[in-house]
């Protein structure tokens, strides 16, 4: 078996690439995959279920590395909408910026965005860890259920709107908080855990410089006296 398989999307199709990746689903190992000429194609490297290593050269379109399981996918460019949506495990790293809904509904694993992330980063996240070295757009962490969203830059409007039990950390400024999202104490244990996460993400930042935001839990049960918050 070759130690590296190269797919040039100028020469082959997305289907051929994904099928080659899926052929290793359920395996414990596989070759390194290098994808050239991504050209903004959609649905690249989606549905992988094996500990593969995939490097994608160029910008990618929607849903790159969607529903990833176990694989390490690195995008050497920018990513379109829905990067690593519903990621289950593994690591997805974007060297550039990510468009809206990055890591949406992710249930596990780690997503690292070395640039900025647009609106709704981490929307409905369900256990994934997201580290954004730049800033995030509005409505990030909307209805976020579990996991951690770490923003080294600034956060746009309505951060953490209708938040459940996900934790949000922001080092810079927050335009404003969404419904039921409040600033919370950053405990010593959380600082340790956050430093570990930052180290895993390869980000040189100190956890103590971040503010922590979480749910006020006022919307967990409907109360007519809170009707103006809905």
């Amino acid at each position, binding site marked *: 078996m070759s130690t590296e398989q190269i797919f040039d999307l100028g020469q082959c199709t997305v289907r051929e690439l994904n099928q080659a990746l899926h052929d290793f689903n359920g395996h414990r190992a596989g070759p390194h995959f290098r994808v050239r000429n991504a050209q903004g194609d959609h649905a690249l490297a989606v549905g992988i279920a094996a500990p593969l290593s995939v490097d994608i050269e160029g910008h990618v379109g929607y849903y790159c590395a969607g529903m990833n399981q176990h694989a390490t996918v690195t995008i050497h460019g920018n990513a379109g909408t*829905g990067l690593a949506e519903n990621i289950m495990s593994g690591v997805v790293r974007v060297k550039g910026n990510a468009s809206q809904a990055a890591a949406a509904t992710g249930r596990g694993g780690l997503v690292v965005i070395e640039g900025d992330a647009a609106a709704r980063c981490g929307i409905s996240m369900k256990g994934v860890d997201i580290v954004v070295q730049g800033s995030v757009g509005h409505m990030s962490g909307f209805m976020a259920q579990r996991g951690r969203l770490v923003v080294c830059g600034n956060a746009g409007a309505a951060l953490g709107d209708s938040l459940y039990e996900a934790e949000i950390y922001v080092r810079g400024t927050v335009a404003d908080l969404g419904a039921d999202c409040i600033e919370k104490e950053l405990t010593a244990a959380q600082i340790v855990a956050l430093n570990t996460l930052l180290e895993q993400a390869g980000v040189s930042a100190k956890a103590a410089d971040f503010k922590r935001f979480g749910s006020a839990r006022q*919307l967990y049960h409907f109360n007519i006296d809170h009707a103006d918050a809905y």
Partner: protein
Amino acid sequence: MTTRDPGLHESYLFNRDVIHEIQRAATEGIYDIRGSGAKRYLPHFDDLVFLGASMSRYPLEGYRERCDTHVVLGTRYAKKPIELKIPITVAGMSFGALSAQAKEALGRGASAVGTSTTTGDGGMTSEERLSSKLLVYQVLPSRYGMNPDDLRLADAIEIVLGQGAKPGGGGMLLGQKINARVAGMRDLPPNIDQRSACRHPDWTGPDDLEIKIRELREITDWEKPIYIKIGASRTYYDTLLAVKAGADVVVVDGMQGGTAATQNVFIEHVGIPTLAAVRQAVEALTELDMHRKVQLIVSGGIRSGADVAKALAMGADAVSVGVAALIALGDNAPALDAEYRQLGSAAGYYDDWQAGRDPAGITTQDDELAQRLDPIMGGRRLANYLRTLTMETQIIARACGKSHVHNLEPEDLAALTVEAAAMAGVPLAGTSWIPGRR
């Protein structure tokens, strides 16, 4: 308005039901939430009749001449289309809204007659996968329990844009039904009210949806049929867009469709009747030359073989049952009347499916109540019901001279009311008049 007490004149606008609701709202300070579908009168399949064969048509002999009922769904793109023995499927209903026993019973019943059942908001349970030979996996805005392993295990994928009981609305599961298992599957704390999103998190329009569908096809190696389910409202345009987005199957759920928990005002006042939605969907498919190429499933108030046959005659490929399937399992059984009355309801009226106290063990997560439903017996009852619907459909099809239920056509129908004639696009009985057409 008619009064029960001579001499008393009840207001039409402020009748006793309205007064009760105003006073309830003033006391409780919250809208009424309930399950099931629209309860008020709406134009429906009852307003249509079949013409039957006579001098100008040749009927088929009942029980002797074959009338086929099989359906193939997903022939447009999927490598592995679904083949059903009957044109009746079981609609999506979540584990959480329903007990595990109820989900298993639905799977057993559907499998016994060769048709499919469908997951719901909350993901796929092992019970329903094991009991369902053909299982459609819903992709909903909440993505609760969304898991690529389950996606690969499914026989088809249904992207839910809405449901007939609440087009434009998200899901709701109140805290009393969120036990540890339901909460775990949804990645949320137990006992809190769960508000499912009404918009998908990672796409925002038909162009995005087309790309989303491509992603799902890539993940599943283009094997699975992909359905798009819409709540009936602007059905003509929604169907056009669903086809453009790449659907193999369009599912149209009319406003009579059921729900596990929705505001009463939403159920009764948003959406259009199934009757009108079917015609609009078929018009859209026909205009695109995709009728029968993209299959159409219709739901929302299907109760009998007559309803099935009328939906098929109007151009549907199959129908789905939800509320009726629960009734077949034992929901609202007269034998439980005393227990329903203890809950402030009565057999035949019970719709507090959101409350989790269902004495039939269907719409509950209470272990003791859920144990009351025997999945094997429930499955048997559902199978009996589905077989009955199928035979009724065949009886009507044979009477119209059809050797396959799909050969039923609008020409076999007449409408009993002007409204139904306009909505269904079939002539008023005894005339050639279809309102709105020359």
